[in-house]
């Protein structure tokens, strides 16, 4: 029996992130590089570490190998202690057979034994593909003060966009009255962020009942929350104020990276008090050549820049040859821009190559962001 925990986290990392297709052909979305040296899952895991949650189950399904290797035993997030850690939870077989995770709720249902190992009072459900900083302890405090069964983290969205989100309607005390998925005529602008704290027994009972419901899609937002509302359980909102982004499309992925370059970025990765932890290889410092020009950019270790980099995010081991110009772009680990090449408003996947003198992307803002997939070569001799 493991040591009893007050709260453990279950992090849903099985999604394909299909709208980021070229970047997720071989890796799950949570393992996609972001912000120069991070992977998307670093933000949720760092939030756990900074919130003193030291036991995290990571539910994986789609192309988990790179993600598994990246997570290791959780040491990089200070979670490999004797009593906690990061545990990778793929679907597994039992005496009654084997099944894939059929939905977010089913993924947790299939791992109820894992939760029971730690016998926590509370279970924090997270998704591994959001960029934000949150103190989960504060949310837990709020949950306890409300004597809640479930707390749902919400944030205000512009009214005109509310119909794109799962919207929660709450009373003055924050008690949730109604959940509407993408409502046509929203009566609230509080959008669910897909972050939940459940009191464990409530979660367990709901998941067991849901598992035998043939009508259910086994989804937290669409099934579990409405079911518990119907049962008059105590569901409360926890209002989050701050930066939160789902980088689910190339446009939002590119834009969110570009925002890191603002003089006073809304999301400050440089804040030393709440560091974002990551599992990085030891790479030598970046080298800027005799003719290098680097402005308004962030650059990670192992990068070698001989040409010009303007307003861009350069990941580890990227290369910019002599005379090459990179502008308004996000360059993922190991990507190479050979001499004389020009890259504008683009995302280059891991180890992608822009060959000598090739031109990729356009400054024309009416054109979508140019994307070159992981390992792809663009330009003379290489196919897009």
């Amino acid at each position, binding site marked *: 029996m493991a040591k009893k925990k007050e709260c453990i986290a279950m992090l849903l990392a099985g999604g394909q992130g299909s709208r980021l297709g070229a970047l997720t052909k071989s890796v799950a979305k949570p393992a996609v590089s972001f*912000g*120069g040296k991070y992977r998307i899952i670093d933000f949720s895991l760092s939030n756990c570490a900074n919130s003193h949650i030291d036991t995290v189950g990571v539910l994986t399904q789609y192309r988990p190998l790179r993600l598994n290797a990246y997570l290791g035993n959780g040491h990089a997030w200070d979670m490999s202690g004797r009593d906690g850690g990061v545990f990778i939870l793929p679907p597994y077989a039992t005496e009654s057979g084997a099944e894939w995770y059929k939905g977010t709720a089913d993924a947790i249902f299939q791992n109820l034994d894992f939760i029971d190992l730690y016998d926590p009072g509370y279970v924090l459900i997270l998704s591994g593909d959001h960029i934000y900083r949150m103190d989960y302890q504060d949310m837990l405090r709020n949950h306890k003060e409300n004597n809640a069964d479930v707390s749902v983290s919400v944030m205000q969205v512009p009214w005109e966009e509310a119909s794109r989100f799962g919207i929660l309607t709450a009373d003055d005390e924050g008690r949730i009255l109604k959940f509407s998925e993408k409502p046509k005529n929203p009566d609230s602008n509080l959008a669910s962020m897909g972050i939940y704290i459940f009191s464990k027994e409530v979660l367990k009972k709901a998941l067991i009942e849901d598992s035998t419901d043939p009508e259910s899609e086994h989804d937290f937002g669409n099934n579990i929350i409405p079911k518990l509302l119907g049962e008059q359980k105590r569901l409360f909102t926890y209002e989050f104020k701050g930066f939160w982004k789902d980088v689910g499309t190339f446009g939002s992925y590119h834009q969110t990276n570009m925002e890191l370059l603002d003089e006073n970025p809304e999301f400050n990765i440089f804040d030393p008090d709440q560091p974002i932890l990551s599992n*990085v290889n030891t790479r*030598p410092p*970046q080298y800027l050549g*005799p003719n290098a020009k680097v*402005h308004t950019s*962030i650059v*990670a*270790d192992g990068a070698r820049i001989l040409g010009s980099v303007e307003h861009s995010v350069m990941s580890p081991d990227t290369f910019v040859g002599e005379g090459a110009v990179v502008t308004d772009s996000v360059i993922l680990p190991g990507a190479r821009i050979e001499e004389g090449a020009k890259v504008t408003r683009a995302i280059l996947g891991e180890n992608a190559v822009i060959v000598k003198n090739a031109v990729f992307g356009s400054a024309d803002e009416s054109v979508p962001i140019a994307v070159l997939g992981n390992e792809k070569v663009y330009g003379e001799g290489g196919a897009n």
Partner: protein
Amino acid sequence: MDKAIGIINANYDTPDLKELINGRTAASVPFGGRYRMIDFALSNMVNADITSVGIITPYKYRSLLDHVGAGSEWNLDRKNGGLFVLPGSVFGISSPGSRFLLRDFRRNMVFLSRAQAQYVVITTANVIANMDYSALIEQHEKSGADVTMATITATEADKDLMGVELEAGKVKSTFRGVKPGDEAFIDCFVVTYSLLLKVLEWYSAIDYLDFFEVLAGDYDKMDVRTYKVTGYVHSVYTADNYFKRNMDLLDPCVVDELFRDERPVLTKITDTAPTRYAETASAKNSLIPAGCMVDGTVENSVLFRGVKVKKGAIVRNSIIMQSCTIGENAVIENVIIDRSNVIAPGTVMKGAADSVLIMAKNELGK
């Protein structure tokens, strides 16, 4: 039984490193933007699959232990073998300049006798090289030698090393005062385990001597050979050499040779954000690690983590160590600024190209 165990001796006097060893050991002097001197020896050990490594520490060991910790960055936090921190003796009284005092080994007989192996690789912590120790061990094993000393062909920069005279492929004598072209010992050798134990026993009464001092009388009886190392190999025992070896890293070929993927140089990891270059930044021919904020000008320089170069500041031909801030419009040329110093706006500090200024570390700075 392990084929080889390793000992990194960090217990020797290096007065010529001047202010750089204020409050730290020569082994833990920062190097190359994010490393410490000892990272090379320690990484060379683990890259040769040596999994029991003892570090003989000198008196001022705080920064060294802070850096190596339990050895986890080098995968040395193991059940079987691992990293062993060994106490060194007080140095510098009878044998100034000595790097392998017998009593440092004798005092740590417990480590030697528990970690049984066929061979012992012994090195100082101040050799900047990505060396394949397994090739050194292999040659030692094939030749049947008792001791194999790693050597280079000396250059002007290698005057501090000990020269080696060979006769019919075996070492016949050693000398001080190395000239360019001489074969010089780089303070790294492999010795057959059983022989090391015998030497320590034979000379137990005079263990204030250096291993190579006692060997000097035995070159006719013992089989001592050399293993010639080529490529980038430099020892750093002086501040002048320290500056030049850091500047060598502004040649990408040197970086590629030292920090190669198949034999990575490992170091303590700290989580810092990538480096941010502002619109006003100008950085050329420089080595800059993550965690810096560059708003001013940096040329021909090596920065370390957490350095801030403010708007209008100019850093040229300099080494700026961890967590320093160069204030607005300050001008820094030919200077080594050790860690945690804050340079006030408008300050001008200039050393000469052949004689750099050193500003000691701000001991209690963050």
